[in-house]
């Protein structure tokens, strides 16, 4: 009998304030969750787009490479051309690709067709493969074009365009990184404002806990936990909502040779969400002053 009366009835849900006890989830928290979720989803979508664009320009390759073609009849100038190209600042190395190797690569690229390699390779120009350094001057492509033209050779212009696109993507990446930081701060402020509202609503509770001699971590922990969970939950939801987007564009992206993978974003989004939530909670509880505070 005494055991029964000394237990919490099943219909009662204990909500003891302070410590590792989460406060009840209300409309303010739901709104903050939605806003942070949408912001994180948008960030995730932008980063996925960047991932796709980088795949498209071939930046997954370790080095950026460019090909120069010399007509077969000028084969005797190949050594001079190779030497001149090697001296251009920003060119790491120059490799000669014999025509048979080029024909085999092309056969492979075309899907192992029944191409007569010997016959086909006799039609190909001589090829030089230039590997470019990470640090390049603005005129490197003009210099390569000029040297090639002097020997009657030509440069693969599509590759130059891809290299330019790659540089543009690098700039966009910096911009997205900057926007991500700004958005993260904005999300932290949203979480912080939400928690400030909740703190105002629970000012009496905080005051009372301090009057009872509660330690600061005991008073603040529920709010820190709430902010952290809010950020983490929003990140998880935002990540799940990336899937419909990825599935929607998968056939179009596939036709461009792009394979988007939201899995690469799961950990960064979760970590970012938790960090943003925790930061917001810490901002909200930084100046949590009550009457009769120990330091008042």
């Amino acid at each position, binding site marked *: 009998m005494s055991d029964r009366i*000394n237990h919490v009835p099943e219909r*009662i849900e204990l909500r003891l*304030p302070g410590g590792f006890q989460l406060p009840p989830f209300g409309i303010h928290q739901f709104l903050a969750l939605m806003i942070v979720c949408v912001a994180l989803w948008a960030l995730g979508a932008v980063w996925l787009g960047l991932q796709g664009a980088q795949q498209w320009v071939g930046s997954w390759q370790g080095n950026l490479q460019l090909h120069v073609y010399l007509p077969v009849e000028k084969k005797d100038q190949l050594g001079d051309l190779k030497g001149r190209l090697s001296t251009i600042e920003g060119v790491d190395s120059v490799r000669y690709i014999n025509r048979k190797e080029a024909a085999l690569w092309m056969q492979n690229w075309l899907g192992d067709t029944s191409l007569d390699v010997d016959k086909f390779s006799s039609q190909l120009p001589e090829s030089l493969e230039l590997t470019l350094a990470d640090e390049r001057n603005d005129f490197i492509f003009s210099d390569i074009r000029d040297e090639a033209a002097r020997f009657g050779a030509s440069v693969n212009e599509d590759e130059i365009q891809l290299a330019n696109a790659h540089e543009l993507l690098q700039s966009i990446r910096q911009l997205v990184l900057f926007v991500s930081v700004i958005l993260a701060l904005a999300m932290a402020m949203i979480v912080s404002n939400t928690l400030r509202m909740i703190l105002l609503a629970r000012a009496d509770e905080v*005051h009372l806990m301090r009057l009872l*001699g509660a330690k600061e971590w005991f008073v603040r922990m529920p709010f820190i936990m709430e902010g952290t969970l809010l950020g983490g939950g929003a990140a998880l939801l935002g990540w799940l909502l990336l899937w419909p987007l990825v599935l929607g564009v998968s056939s179009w992206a596939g036709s461009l040779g792009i394979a988007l993978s939201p899995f690469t974003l799961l950990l960064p989004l979760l970590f970012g969400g938790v960090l943003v939530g925790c930061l917001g909670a810490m901002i909200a509880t930084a100046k949590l002053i009550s*009457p009769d505070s*120990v*330091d008042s």
Partner: protein
Amino acid sequence: MLKSNLWFVSRNADRVLLHRYCIPMSNDQNTVSKPIITMQQLMLRYPTGKVALSGVSLAISQGSFVYLTGESGAGKSTLLRMFYGGLKPSSGQMGVQQWDMRSVSESDVRELRQRTGIIFQDHKLLFSRTVFENVALPLRVQGWDKERLVPRVRKVLGFVGLDDRLWSYPEALSGGEQQRIAIARAMVTNPPIILADEPTGNLDEETARKVLDLLMSLNQSGTTVIMATHDLHLLTSHPGRVVQLHQGSLVGDSYE
């Protein structure tokens, strides 16, 4: 007034001497017990420059029942706040339990508050929490396990006659019942001292007497009770030491 002050100064000088030579002071002039609170020439000045308390010298023995009386603004609530570390003295000496309140650290104040029960005129109950959650809060602060909370809270609520309201919300209770819940919350950790700031201020006479009966019972079990009040008529039925403040100064100290 002058005569009264002189009477107090000579009487207080004896107390200071007793304290200086570590002789336990009397609670009711017949029994001898150790002081739980001592003050000498205590002064409190707010940052605005207003002097709230001035030259207060007083000793309160362990296990005594003390009424703090005086007009509004006399300094009763200020003095109570100083007893739990809500305010620090500007000058003079003040010792509460084992702590010197002028040099007390933050962690000491927390420990002092854990060993002090506080009752307010407006109860300061959490209306969004059940009676159980309100009364269990001090125990939670002190790290009690959830399993031990229910029996302890039920026992304390039994003392104030409200053990059948464990899962009710405070708004469903009358003013007197709410004040009894506040008393239960103050005594649940079994503190050596209970501070009550006008606990009967909002109650009718009959309910006020019942609340005071509870505080007297606590006092009889050894708890020091210090109560700020305006209800001087309660002294006839519930006698105790009466400390009178006027404009921040001590003007009377008698046993009624």
